[in-house]
Each structure stands twice: as C-alpha cells, then as structure tokens.
C-alpha cells in the first residue's frame, strides 16, 4: 500500500501527536521508501495554514525526497471537470483537488493507493475530500487509524 497525505492530516499529527518528532521521523522514512508522498500544493497550503509550525516545516524539509510530487495538469483538469463540487472557487490555497488528482493518478498507474486525510466534513464551500474519494473508489483513512496501522504511537 502507498499513501498520499494532505495538509489536514499533517496538521493533525503536528497539533495532536504527543510526540510529533517521532511520528514525522517515521514518515520521513516512509517518504524515502516511496511508501508515502504528498503533492506540491500541500506544501503551499501548509505554508498558509501552518506557517512556521512543525507540519509545514516537516513538509518543506522532506519535499525534495518525494518520489511523486503530484498529478499532471491534465489529470487535475480531468478531476476538476468530472468530480462535482470539489473546487472552492475562492479557496485560493486549497490543495484538495490536487490531492485527489494525485491519488487518482497513482491509482491509474496501478498502484494500491489510499489518501490520509482529516477532510471528512461537509462544508459550505465544497464537498469533503473523503466523499470525493468514495466517488472515485479511492481508499481514505484518518490519522489515528493510519498511524496505528503503521505501528506508530497515537496520539
């Protein structure tokens, strides 16, 4: 299994983990082993929502080691055109459509992919990432279950 993680999940680890350094060290190893990735837009979003915070700093530190950095513009366009209500028209720093496109692209390559996200709630501006994943039959998991399944402590 390979995972792609979004900003909401990285932020949750940074703010709720009792030892986020240990957690991020383990995630760094997973990045190096190509088990975990995130798209460029997640780095941009974290710079906005977690400026100088551990989650954004971790993402900025390991971004150069990623095997996959995001979907092609063609795939993002396909997602934007075919999955309803996933774009917040004024959500300038919202990485969600790119995260979904990234997972979709990896899935199309035949990889066993799942999204790690906390974006599970209905919202006024667009649909939740978890709902969009369901529509495209992409697996998704929240942070506590994911870290536990990886043998990492939580919280």
């Amino acid at each position, binding site marked *: 299994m390979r995972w792609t993680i979004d900003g909401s999940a990285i932020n949750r680890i940074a703010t709720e983990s009792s030892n986020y350094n240990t957690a991020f060290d383990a995630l760094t190893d997973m990045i190096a082993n190509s088990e975990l990735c995130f798209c460029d837009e997640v780095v941009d979003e974290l710079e906005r929502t977690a400026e100088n915070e551990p989650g954004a700093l971790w993402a900025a530190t390991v971004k150069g080691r990623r095997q996959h950095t995001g979907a092609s513009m063609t795939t993002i366009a396909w*997602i934007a055109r075919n999955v309803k209500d996933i*774009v917040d028209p004024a959500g*300038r720093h*919202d990485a969600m459509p*790119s995260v979904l496109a990234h997972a979709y692209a990896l899935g199309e390559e035949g990889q066993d992919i799942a999204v790690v996200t906390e974006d599970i709630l209905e919202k006024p501006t667009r649909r939740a990432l978890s709902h969009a994943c369901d529509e495209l039959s992409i697996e998704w998991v929240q942070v506590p279950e994911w870290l536990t399944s990886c043998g990492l402590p939580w919280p």
Partner: protein
Amino acid sequence: MKPTYVPVTPAVLQWAMEESAVDPPELAERAKTEPSTVLGWLNGEEQPTKTQFRAIAAMLKRPAAFFMMASPPIETAVPPAFRHPPGHPEHESTRAELDAVATASRVRRIARWTAERVADRRWLDEPVPAVTSDTPPARAAEMATSWLAWSTTEQRGAANPSAVVKIVRGRLEERGVLALQLPIGEELCRGFSLNDDVKPLVAINSAYIPAARLFTYVHELGHLMRRSDSICLGFGDTGVERWCEQFAAALLMPHEHLRTRIAARFGTGATITDLEQVRLLAGDFNVSLTATAIRLEDLNCGTALVSQIPRTSDHKKSGGGRGSDSTRGAVRARELGEGYISLMLAGARDGALGRQDLLRYLDVSEGQLRSTGIGPLER
C-alpha cells in the same frame, strides 16, 4: 525544454476576469505576454504555459483547479447592481471594490452555513425592524436606537470616534450582523451591505477615518432595515442613499441633543455658519465633519456648510494606523470582526467545521490562531 501547457476552460477564465474587473491587457501584463495571447486563451485557440498560468491564478485570486472546471459557477459573488451603482452611471466598480464584495459574499455564505449548524438564530429571532421608503428616517432611527440599545450619552462620553466605532460594531455583531472592515482604498466606496435572512452583513472601508466609519456602519444598517443590498460611494446620490444618510444622522445626532449642544456652545437658536463651529459639534458627538454638516443643514441649523468641508476630510492621514499589529492574524481579526470569528470558533467546537476548514475560512495559520487573540481552540 518543451513548456507545459495548462488546459484552462475559456468560459471559466472569462468569468473570473469579469468577476475581478480584469481586462485582457491587464492580464497579459501580469502574465508577461501580449493581449492577443490572452484573447487566444479566451477563445480556446491557445493555452497558457505553467508560468503564465501561475500569474493568472495569482492575479484573479483563484485556485488552480478552478480554471479547469467544466463551466463557471452559476452564482456570481458580486450583485449586478454593485458593478454600476445607482446614482453613479459613470462609475464602474474597481477591482478593489469587487474583491471586497467577493470576500464579503464568501464570508456571508460560510457564516450562514455555520450559523444554521450551531443554531445561531440571533437575527432570525430578533432582526432589526423592517421599514419602507415611506418610513421617515427619524422614525427609523428611533426604531434602530431601541434595537441597538444605543445611548447618545454613551456615544458622546466615549473617548474618541474609534471607541464609538467599536461599540456600534459590537452591538451589530451581538445581534447577528456580520460587520467587516476591509481595505478598499481611498476615494472608493465607503461601505456596502448584503441583506440576508440569517446572516446579513455590513462592510465598511477602513481607508476612512473612524468618525466616517461610524457614520457608514449606521448608514449600512439603514439599508438592512430596508432589506436591500447596497454599495455606497458618496453622499446623497439617490433617494435611498439620502434616506440612509438622514437615518444615520438622526441616530447619531438626535434632534434634541444637537439643539442642546448648539445652545450650550453658541446660544439658543444659533445658526451655524463656519467650519470651526461644525468641528466643535462633530467632536461633541464623535462623528465626522461631513456627517455633522449634513445634519445641520437638514435641520436648518446651518447653511452652506457641506461645501466648506475639505474633500479629503474623511480620509485617513497617510501613515495613520502605525503601531497596530500588522501580522496576518491581527489584520484578519480586524477585518473579519469578532462576530464572524466567534461563529467560526463555535462551528469548530461543535464539530461542524474541521480544523483545517477553520484555518481556511479565517485565512490564518495555527500559530496566528493562538497568538492574535483569535484562538486558542480546544480540539
């Protein structure tokens, strides 16, 4: 190396340019290309490179995926009447004005959605009384004074106009009105209002001095009493604007209070004729020179006063506001107001909003949420 082209949807690009009042030459300049190339993007014959696309997204303030949607949004963030405000046929709303209205529309939409989930029924249960065009402004002012629990004594006793602005903004927010304070620029609209049956909104331009902002807050409340959307450029441009002006003046300078002050300062029944007299009375009520002059003329207590007021008297002095916290969190807190922020925090506490959604809707970082008085938030 072959450039990567981005498959933008022409109709979506066109929509975004219109929403932001950006024309092809302006977009071309930002994207470092020719206007004819932008026209090529708009008719679908060409596509922007990735570098040009980043410039487009930044200038039009939209996420990248937005430009690749199948079609533009059905809803427009800016009411059509705001593009060419009544009474100003020559005025085409500027990018700053449209951006401010778009920001406010988004805030209202998010606030309304959240209010319905956290059972915030303040406006629903006790909205400001509705009036019609036949309601005399002074009568409407009495109704609003009661609804706001407004006290002229408290207003006059405040340390300065800024303190009164805080009071009126707080009173509006306590009653469920969103009260925004946005930087729209000098010489541009003083404020606007967006009517709503759950979360109405008033926004004022922070480029004006506090005394002018105070008048605009109350003026916009007048529009809400008329249950209408409005963008307000100057003074008395239309019958509706004139009504709101008289309403605001009546609320902030009630007839008897004003006559009492005139008598105390200049003698019973004195006629006000010069700017220094207007300045003294304006100080008595913590309101602007312009508002005071208008009120005095309306009550036949003075003549030819408005024409004496310097055109820029309501504008902030350059360099003003120095010393205030300019970090993004503090700026957002000032702009969005306590009403919206507390509603977002309530939404997060009640589980209606996710933490990342909270950060997005306030446009702050985790650290700013903790350090600027917006937070902290318990998970």
